């Protein structure tokens, strides 16, 4: 059975290109042009993944994210223009899985979809607890971090931070989510904590900390671990 993707996008051209591109990759594609149409489709013909455009004519993408999250862990990828930054971040904080900044290439979209689908049904399967890419290994369950085969020593806070990113499995984790999960809800605005600890973490995990290859900054949004 092929994977069903719902594209919520009000621009006809973009909708049609995305439909063609995703169909060519073997996805079954549903489209909706408004919040109401999307809500109806989600109700009657639930897809496996949603690509949600911001700035729909009849309402707020947040409605859709909330409606989906109240029922399932269905991956949601938010597509937004640069000026919708704030809305995008609030949707990520509310539980959207990842984002794309318009204009984006089809290959970027496919990469995001692949990452998102990897976690399909995370409510049933155990969450990702292991990251192995290149010379870096992070095993959350075993409390072990290695670079080029040598064990690294992380402080408990650094380890919590790394573990949070590993569990996201390649999806972006927003500043707010990281601060809340590692330092606690009262620190969600203290982005300087992140700057400092991410710096320390990179210094240990990356060969060239100023040009990271694993632990990427999503400027203005958050961080992610690169997965292949």
């Amino acid at each position, binding site marked *: 059975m092929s994977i069903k993707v719902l594209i919520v996008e009000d621009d006809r051209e973009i909708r049609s290109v995305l439909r063609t591109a995703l169909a060519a990759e073997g996805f079954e594609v549903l489209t909706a042009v408004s919040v109401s149409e999307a809500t109806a489709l989600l109700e009657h013909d639930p897809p496996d993944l949603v690509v949600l455009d911001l700035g729909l004519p009849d309402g707020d993408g947040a409605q859709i994210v909330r409606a989906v999250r109240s029922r399932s862990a269905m991956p949601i990828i938010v597509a937004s223009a640069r000026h919708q930054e704030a809305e995008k971040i609030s949707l990520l904080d509310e539980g959207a899985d990842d984002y794309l900044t318009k204009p984006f290439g089809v290959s970027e979209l496919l990469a995001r979809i692949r990452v998102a689908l990897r976690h399909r049904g995370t409510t049933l399967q155990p969450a990702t607890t292991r990251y192995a890419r290149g010379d870096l290994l992070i095993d959350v369950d075993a409390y072990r971090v290695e670079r080029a085969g040598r064990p690294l020593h992380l402080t408990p806070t650094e380890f919590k931070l790394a573990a949070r990113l590993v569990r996201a499995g390649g999806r972006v984790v927003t500043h707010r989510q990281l601060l809340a999960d590692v330092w606690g809800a009262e620190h969600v605005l203290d982005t300087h904590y992140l*700057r400092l600890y*991410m710096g320390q973490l990179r210094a240990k995990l990356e060969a060239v900390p100023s*040009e990271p290859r694993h632990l990427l900054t999503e400027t203005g949004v958050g961080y992610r671990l690169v997965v292949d």
Partner: protein
Amino acid sequence: MKSSMETDRSRAWRGALVAVALLSAATVVCAVLDAEISLMSQAMIDLLAVVAASYLVPRLVAVGTAIGAVAALNFFFVPPRYTLAVEHREHLIALVAMLAVALLVSYLSTALKRESAAARESESRAGQLRSLAIDLAAAGSEDEAVDIGRRALLERFAGPVLLVTSVDGVISSGVDASEDVRRALRCCIDEAAVLGPGTGRWPGLDSWYVPLGAHGRVVGAARIEPALASDTIGREHAQAIAALLAQGVWRLRLLEASLAARAEVERQHVQATFLASVSHDLRTPLAAIVAAASSLEAQRSRLGDAEQGRMLAGIVAEARYLTAVTENTLQLVRLSAGGGALRTEWQSIEEIVGSVVGRLRARPSGGRIRARLGRALPLVRGDATLLAQLATNLIDNALKYSEGAVNLTVVQRGDRLLLSVKDRGSGLAPGDESRVFEPFHRGRDASDARGAGLGLALCRAIAAAHGGSLGVSRRARGGCRFTLALPVAEQPAVEVLP
């Protein structure tokens, strides 16, 4: 000018007392010296009193003094004494002649007195107008000019004085006056005519209403008290002050209008060049996209795989370039509009540069980037998206205008964080150091490179919005160096966790 009927009368009474005193004194002196001097000397002493009185007392009293002096001389000293009868014909002639002389002297000296007073008065009025003209010429604002005018009027008139300005016949707001006063002010402005006592217009009013300026360009009006119908000179002086004030206000308004007009022309010029530059930057890549896409549409069957691939890659590259131009333009407009509230948070410059370099490395020319960052760099407060865009534009620009390595360094120097991007390109033309940041400037070999123009203008706007600066200098052996200096604030406190 500051007079009334009441003070006139009391002055006459005082004058009469002075005259009586003078005459009595003269008569007493004559009586004391009666045995030693002749009637002629006594007449001279009396005449002296008349001359003195004509200087000291009002005119009518002075005339009375002259008559009184002759009568007193006749009564006390001309035989037969103690009667008003005159014995000798010679004495009668002398008395008549003396009366004539006394009246003439009195008349002449009061006239002289009046004229010298008038001359002093008019000199002081002229002096006031002169200094008013000088003060008004130095006034920098309409409020200041009006204030100077009000002070000048209050120097001459007891007040109260009300000064209002108007634009196109509409009185400026914030004037505290009754409806009657407002109506009179409006009428005075509309008709550009003086109203009030002695003017023949609205003579029943208790003050003068003097327009500021002549017909067609009245800039306000003054309400002046006290206003006497007979005080023509006072009214004319008030009009002179009003005329000077009107000129001053008019000059300031013209100046303001011409400055505004110049600013508007400037703004339109900037806007026009900005639009021309943006539309050029948008049109060129669009032309490339349309050419490649239409060629693929029409000639696909005749194009080889390699050619098709090249065209497709071109379309993608041009579209990315369009995205960058659009992004730069929007951010620049947002920043120069002063709005768009910077989202400032503590940022790690290492992180921002890292993500920018990482992204640019993926491009074909990205291999030329060499980044070197200092250790333990401080955090800076700023908007990560904008700072990333600044770094992107600077590196982009260096890659575009040079063939060799592009060196990026970040170091801390005192309370500044310096980010430099250096290339070995063709460098800057002398004098281009500030022009490269103008929104429409196209650098060096404008013919073969796309305008980075807006990109650098945006960089400078971003630097300024962060309280920093961005400059460019020519390097000794070719190429140039862009340096961003950001202020380093006191670092935030961090609760240290293990």
